[in-house]
């Protein structure tokens, strides 16, 4: 035992006037930040264990708890901040890579918040979505350039399309990284809302096969859970090349999370680490990707759209173009604020580019090449609300992927400790004591409510712009104006400044 320089990050404040010593906090904290003292007959706090997940705060029936930043002040130093120093203390303790969960939390500009939407005034009418039909239906898939029509009949079928009742899907989160109950919640919500959820790279649990028609299954570098049935059960298949939180990095599900169910679903031995390599070892270049795309199309008789998901990196526009030309039906781009169950901190916080730029660049590039209409473009990586979605569509997206928002709807409080497996909200854990905290009935309702609420808001915003079908917003960048942006940024986003 030697000195440990790490001090608590959070302070638990217990209002003595309100605390009734009912011990709900003690029973609910998997981190043991609350302790019942038998001798004193009251509850004590172990601040150092607190991760500020708010489980106790929410569950406390008398609202007697508050969590604060631990008030310990370091001597002010604009360069050597508390965070910088704490990271070093931790690494000095452990000698390890700093791990974190969820998305990039650095104060980079959020470009969604630098774009403003238009509304109709006088010269054309806004539309009241309560009175007029408002269409959010979206089809994802490859589109032909034109149609052959003769005598009122279509001569050739169009390629397979995913039908979405609203332009929002749940993006990939594997069973293993999140609990089966989280999967059940998302799958049921997707079905209820008429959209899709994504298995991530962890296979499809047998209980969820019934939701196959609302499931996008992922084929990633570890190929976990992939077999013919998996592909055939799904509504669409996504090849995962990269993810926004950790571009260029693979995945690692520790053996302790690989219990009976995870093991069967991933098709790997019980208790073994599940390692997804950084690259697909059969894709070292774009032509290899084309082979995988067509292998999957062959395996599913060209009945299912193939997604290719990449992280938003510097050259994303050209890469996306290559993916379209490799035969992908949908290109999914994940921005650098996208979440994760576990990522090296330094990768998460400093690799990749914002999704707003990536989307604008890709949409523009594909239009310049005349191939934008061939594919659908799905973006994710910290879509926080309905106006982010409206802005994304106006920049050129067909639909968005949400994951962090979806988890927050299930109760996630962004404590960023997913990698510990002690998620007090029953989401990012496989501990049966914790996973049951997420009742999938409630989860499904909440996630579906979120979608419903956002759909209503999107309709309101569309109506305000005088638009009654989402497709008329897609790529309609005139509906956006930038605020607080440089000319260069406006130029990349392809929008005018507010007032122009």
């Amino acid at each position, binding site marked *: 035992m030697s000195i440990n320089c790490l001090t608590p990050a959070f302070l638990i404040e217990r209002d003595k006037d309100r605390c009734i010593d009912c011990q709900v906090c003690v029973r609910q904290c998997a981190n043991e930040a609350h302790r019942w003292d038998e001798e004193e007959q009251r509850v004590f706090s172990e601040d150092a264990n607190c991760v500020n997940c708010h489980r106790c705060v929410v569950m406390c029936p008398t609202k007697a708890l508050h969590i604060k930043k631990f008030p310990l002040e370091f001597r002010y130093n604009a360069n050597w901040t508390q965070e910088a120093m704490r990271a070093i203390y931790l690494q000095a303790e452990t000698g390890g890579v700093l791990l974190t969960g969820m998305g990039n939390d650095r104060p980079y500009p959020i470009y969604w918040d630098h774009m403003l939407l238009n509304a109709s005034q006088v010269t054309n009418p806004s539309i009241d979505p309560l009175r007029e039909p408002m269409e959010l*239906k979206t089809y994802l898939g490859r589109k032909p350039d034109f149609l052959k*029509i003769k005598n*009122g009949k*279509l001569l050739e079928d169009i390629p397979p399309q995913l039908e979405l009742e609203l332009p929002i899907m749940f993006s990939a989160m594997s069973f293993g990284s999140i609990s089966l109950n989280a999967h059940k919640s998302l799958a049921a919500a997707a079905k209820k809302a008429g959209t899709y959820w994504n298995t991530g790279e962890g296979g499809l649990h047998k209980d969820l096969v019934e939701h196959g028609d609302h499931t996008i299954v992922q084929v990633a570098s570890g190929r976990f859970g992939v077999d013919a049935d998996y592909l055939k059960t799904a509504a669409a298949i996504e090849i995962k090349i990269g993810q926004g939180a950790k571009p260029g990095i693979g995945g690692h599900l520790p053996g302790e999370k690989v219990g009976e169910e995870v093991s069967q679903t991933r098709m790997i031995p019980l208790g073994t680490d599940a390692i997804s390599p950084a690259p697909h070892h059969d894709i070292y270049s774009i032509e290899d990707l084309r082979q995988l795309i067509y292998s999957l199309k062959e395996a599913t008789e060209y009945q299912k759209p193939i997604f290719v998901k990449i992280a938003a990196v510097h050259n994303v526009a050209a890469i996306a173009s290559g993916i379209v030309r490799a035969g992908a039906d949908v290109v999914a781009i994940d921005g650098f604020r996208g979440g994760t169950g576990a990522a090296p901190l330094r990768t998460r916080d400093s690799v990749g580019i914002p999704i707003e730029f990536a989307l604008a660049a890709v949409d523009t590039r594909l239009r310049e090449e005349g191939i934008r209409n061939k594919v659908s473009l799905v973006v994710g990586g910290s879509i926080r609300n309905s106006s982010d979605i409206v802005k994304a569509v106006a920049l050129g997206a067909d639909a968005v992927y949400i994951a962090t928002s979806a988890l927050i709807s299930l109760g996630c409080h962004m404590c960023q400790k997913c990698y510990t497996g002690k998620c007090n909200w029953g989401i990012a854990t496989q501990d049966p004591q914790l996973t049951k905290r997420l009742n999938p009935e409630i989860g499904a309702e909440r996630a579906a409510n979120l979608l419903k609420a956002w759909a209503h808001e999107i309709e309101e915003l569309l109506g305000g712009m005088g638009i009654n079908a989402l497709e008329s*917003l897609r*790529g309609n960048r005139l*509906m956006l104006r930038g605020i607080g942006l440089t000319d260069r940024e406006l130029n990349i986003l392809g929008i005018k400044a507010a007032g122009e």
Partner: protein
Amino acid sequence: MLKEGHIRIPAGCAISGIMNKKGEVTSGQEIIKSIAVMHDRSNGLGGGFAAYGIYPEFKNHYALHLFFDDKKVKQETEFLLNKFFSIDLAETIPIRKINAIKNVPLIWRYFVKPKIKEMALHETESEFVVNFIMRINSEVEGAYVFSSGKNMGTFKGVGFPEDIGEFFRLDEYKAYSWTAHGRFPTNTPGWWGGAHPFSLLDWTIVHNGEISSYDANRRYLEMYGYKCTLQTDTEAITYIFDLLLRKFGIPLESAINIVAAPFWSKISRMNPDEQKLFKALRVVFSSLLINGPFSIILGSKNGFMALNDRLKLRSLVAAQKGDNLYIASEESAIREICKNPDKSWAPKGGEPVICLLDGKESLYEFDQVDENEFEHHSVAL
């Protein structure tokens, strides 16, 4: 102040159209009377007309109408014209000087035929002409081609439409199909090229409304080589129809079901074949849905079609008497020139009123498009 082409200018409008199915021609007096009734729907910042059948003596020539800011630009433009076309007649368009019309640019017309040797491989004649117009309009500052069809012409300028009609001496032209436009732009210095109708080859469009899908439509069109230099709805709508009908060979009926697509709820009630077609139209051409209020009259040499947006957010009235079909923003504009029509009605949103010359089956003829044309458009990947 930025003019059309530099900025997007919303405008309200009046539109009117008269056509005789038998092809009998009448002078421009009636259409002027009709549009004049709706004086208050314009604000003097734009008016114009399209007339079909006016140049029978040059019916195989492209009649190019151009505005020039000055003589230097005119020379520059004529140099290019000469390079790509043989010009059989060049003249100023006859005008009548009236007080109401000021700041008149140089207004010329050229009856031309393309020089075959200048055409690119696989380029059709119409594409050649369109490409030339796109080039002049986007690259030659101060010159603007505002009419380019055969045996037809558009006449437009800054002023109330009835004044523009008098200015261009339309009473002296005889056409079987007339459309007119009075404009109420919210801010423009008054640029002649910005007035309507908008025209490309034989297509003319008069339009009332402000489409909220504009940029979605525009950016899609630009993938297919169109340059929406005016940034007006009318221009975009013209190109949409040009793309769908001329380039893609989509039947007019389907094109209408693209721009004023039925709601998904309606599609879901269709029979399976219809459903398949309508779904494909909406899925593939979703970016060509014209959203927001509009009423348009799309004119071609074969006739015209009037159409409202699918919610019918703009007024549009039709009437018929004998062989004549009348369309206008307001019924008064029809009654002014046709006291007792056989019938008059308000067309439903998304349901077109089509008037074709006897013997014609479509607004657009596939004379330049053969079956192989389809292959042209599948971009090899």
